[in-house]
């Protein structure tokens, strides 16, 4: 009875007011006997707070963590620095324990944060509008696929094979539901094969989905792809790395119709895969198609600027089966973290993070390139992540690196069998030259 504040005396008084002699009566009045559970739940006995923490810390102590290991693992989750002030606000009870701001008069805090978040996303992507958040990058991409299908009425989407394998799976899972065919466009080396792509993008295709930089870390010819897509009336969906957008052009400036992003890098802990932040942004013309909550500015009856949930007629609680999506709860607290993050690093800080990541990744690539038996898998440009071919399977090398306190890169050959012994290495601003040199030295020891 850890969090139940009703005393036995209170309970008795309450039962009296209700007019029953026990809570049993309330349940008996409701739950038919034939579905009642007539035994106690078979769960381990209740623990006190002190035991809970001890149990969970014992349980998770065996995990390798980024606190103790040097991380060169990316592949969808990045060890970027999270400023201390981010968590200070994530912990504030007023943000943490509120729900969707249905009552705007007592929710201006959350509402203004979301409005600022939407604005920041628009700035970053060069798009016109953003919603209040999606579950994660993968499901945001799937929702974007749904949007292009709804918008065009077509029943095929083309997804680059260089998109995160898990995200492609999510897209396929969602699209299967509504009977949409997902066509995977093949690669040459680490990039989309533009010739093959051209043949795949027909006028039956609702949208073309690419990731930039792609899963292998490399840059796609987005300006060319945009033209291919739009030439056939397909929409152009870009999955971007938010950090990269301090260095790489905003998708809004090369014709993206929808931008989706995983916002983990923006102040959210890796946390074994979640909770993170799905970002989706689009053009004004698709404002009635975008899923999820949106906050808008308005006036109150005292003439003050204030914020409120708006355009709700897209949503499930009004439109039910005709809604743009079923999303209800989202990732607002992670959007808060991203808002605080972007505020703290600011215009110049984001550039610093991006540039440092770029510099260190390129340094690492250059050094690894020099090692016998290793080579950069592809010639094309990359940002903070790149793929190398190793003298042995990456899984094997990673086991050796682990011994040295290093979490090596992602073993990408299983997903990209054409790239032998491939390892995709991510380098963020947190990695020092010394750490990179250690990695290189350790790789050099592989024979």
């Amino acid at each position, binding site marked *: 009875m850890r*969090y*139940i*504040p*009703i005393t036995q005396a209170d309970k008795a008084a*309450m039962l009296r007011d209700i007019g029953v002699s026990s809570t049993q009566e309330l*349940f008996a009045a409701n739950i038919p006997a034939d*579905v009642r559970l007539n035994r106690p739940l078979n*769960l381990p006995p209740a*623990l006190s707070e002190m035991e809970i*923490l001890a149990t969970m810390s014992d349980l*998770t102590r065996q*995990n*390798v963590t*980024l606190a103790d290991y040097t991380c060169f*693992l990316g592949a*969808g*989750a990045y*060890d970027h620095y999270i400023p201390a*002030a981010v968590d200070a606000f994530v912990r504030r009870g*007023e*943000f*943490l324990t509120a*729900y969707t701001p249905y*009552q705007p*008069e007592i929710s201006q805090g*959350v509402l203004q944060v979301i409005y600022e978040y939407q604005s920041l996303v628009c700035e970053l992507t060069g798009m016109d509008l953003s919603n209040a958040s999606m579950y*994660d990058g993968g499901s945001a991409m799937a929702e974007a696929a749904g949007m292009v299908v709804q918008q065009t009425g077509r029943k095929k989407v083309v997804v680059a094979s260089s998109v995160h394998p898990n995200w492609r*799976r*999510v897209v396929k899972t969602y699209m*299967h*539901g509504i009977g949409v065919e997902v066509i995977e466009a093949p690669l040459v080396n680490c990039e989309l094969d533009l010739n093959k792509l051209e043949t795949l993008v027909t006028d039956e295709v609702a949208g073309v989905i690419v990731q930039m930089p792609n899963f292998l870390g490399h*840059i796609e010819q987005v300006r060319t792809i945009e033209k291919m897509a739009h030439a056939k009336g397909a929409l152009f969906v870009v999955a971007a790395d938010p950090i990269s957008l*301090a260095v*790489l*052009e*905003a998708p809004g400036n090369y014709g993206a119709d929808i931008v989706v992003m995983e916002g983990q890098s923006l102040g959210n802990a890796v946390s074994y*895969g*979640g909770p993170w932040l799905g970002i989706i942004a689009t053009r004004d013309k698709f404002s009635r198609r975008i899923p999820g909550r949106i906050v*808008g500015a308005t006036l109150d009856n005292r003439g*003050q600027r*204030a914020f409120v949930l*708006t355009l709700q007629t897209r949503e499930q*609680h009004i*439109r*039910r*089966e005709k*809604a743009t999506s*079923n999303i*209800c*709860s*989202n990732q*607002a*607290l992670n959007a*808060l973290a991203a*808002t605080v993050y972007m*505020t703290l*690093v600011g215009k*110049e800080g984001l550039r610093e*993070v991006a540039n440092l990541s770029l510099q260190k990744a390129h340094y690492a690539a250059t050094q690894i390139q020099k090692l016998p038996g290793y080579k950069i898998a592809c010639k094309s440009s990359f940002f903070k992540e790149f793929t190398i071919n190793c003298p042995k399977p990456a899984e094997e090398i*990673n086991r050796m690196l682990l011994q040295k306190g290093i979490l090596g890169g992602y073993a990408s050959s299983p997903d990209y069998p054409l790239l032998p012994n491939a390892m995709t290495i991510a380098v963020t601003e947190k990695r020092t030259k010394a750490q990179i040199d250690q990695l290189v030295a350790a790789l050099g020891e592989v024979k």
Partner: protein
Amino acid sequence: MSTLALIFEKSTPGKRAVTFPACDVPEVDPSAVIPAELLRQKPAELPEVSEIEAVRHFTQLSRRNHGVDVDFYPLGSCTMKYNPKVNEEAARLPGIALAHPQQPVETVQGNLKLLHTLEGWLCEVTGMDRMTFQPAAGAHGELTGILIIKAYHESRKDTDRRKVIVPDSAHGTNPATAAMAGFDVVSIPSKHDGSVDLDALRAVVGPDTAALMMTNPSTLGIFDPHVKDVAEIVHAAGGLVYYDGANMNAIMGYARPGDMGFDVVHLNLHKTFSTPHGGGGPGSGPVGVKQFLAPFLPVPVVELAGDKYLLDWERPLSIGKMMGFYGNFGVVARAFAYTLAYGPELKEVSEYAVLNANYIQAHLRKYYDLAVDRYCMHECVISAKTLKHEVGVKTLDIAKRLLDEGIHPPTIYFPMIVEEAMMIEPTETEDKATLDRFIASMVQIYKEAKEDPERVKSAPHLTVVGRLDEALAARKPNLRFKKDL
């Protein structure tokens, strides 16, 4: 004082909060490694503020917000229970917060064990056989579950089942989910108590029925007396039954969806299992299934092989993936902590949730209309219908007047089948004194509505902003700040 400038409006060129170290590796010119036409031309206009400004901005914003930590929050259907602080610490343990999802399984045995263990526990609570934590929220769980049902029918080549039956008292996510999974939604009228009208159901089930989605207790806070019949009718027609477990806080330890004959159920960990709502999320919507549906669960599935946990990706019948990795793991970890705190006493959670709701109902029925005149489960639905007819004071006005008392209003105008509905879910974490204060406020507003209706209709009076012009917001959408050029 009441308008707080946007962080963009506080921006001054050149100001900095967090900075980063100088580059310690030989530098390349970005334009030498990135094609010129893909280099960003104009930097994103992120705000430029100092750390103290950022801290004050978000501190002040938080002070303009209500939360469970601030005061009572009986938002029906949302189970705004207390969010234990220890769970926040648990989720920040390095093994949890600082584990990378792509780590080799040997290096995350603790987290896999956590998932596997909680799966077992929640299967016990729901009466299901297997469970996935991949869904990020209730609606996401619904979609997962309905896609599993779809995959099941497909695996049997039973492909004419294009319809999903949803009672009209259901939460909006139910029909929206069915549509998103490519089904036609068949809405059936509920009985006035929110329970399934068996005749209406019998009239629509058939060989085209893929599934029925049912919320139980219903959104009217009533346990469906014929829940087993519902399952049987649908099963008899070859369809599967989906249990929206968002209201699980009413029945833990008392009844289990699995025992009621349901094939798929989702839980809302951010409701029943106390994880914080975060201003809208993150949540977690794990989906439990009976054994015959286990092959269809999203990949990967956590399995125990000997004394090692592993991630099983080789599941040919799987629906695929619903999220990038394994769901909102940090949220799941909080629910794990919560389950540890109760063990079998989870039953008391439901006992007191039901007690509290009935206590409120017993008192407010003297002033407001009841949607259903019987003992409720974890929430009660009342209505201001009579008051509206008598003095023109609507549910919305009552809600706004409650704001002046520092209390978050109940869910209003839902379920839609009840006129002027107020759906009150106190949860088990509120004490009698708080319930009494809420009841007194509701009675006081009732009286005020009779004596001085204008005072109620013009509420709120004490909040930092007054009623908002929502029509203006929708008519002239202003959805982002943009710097004047």
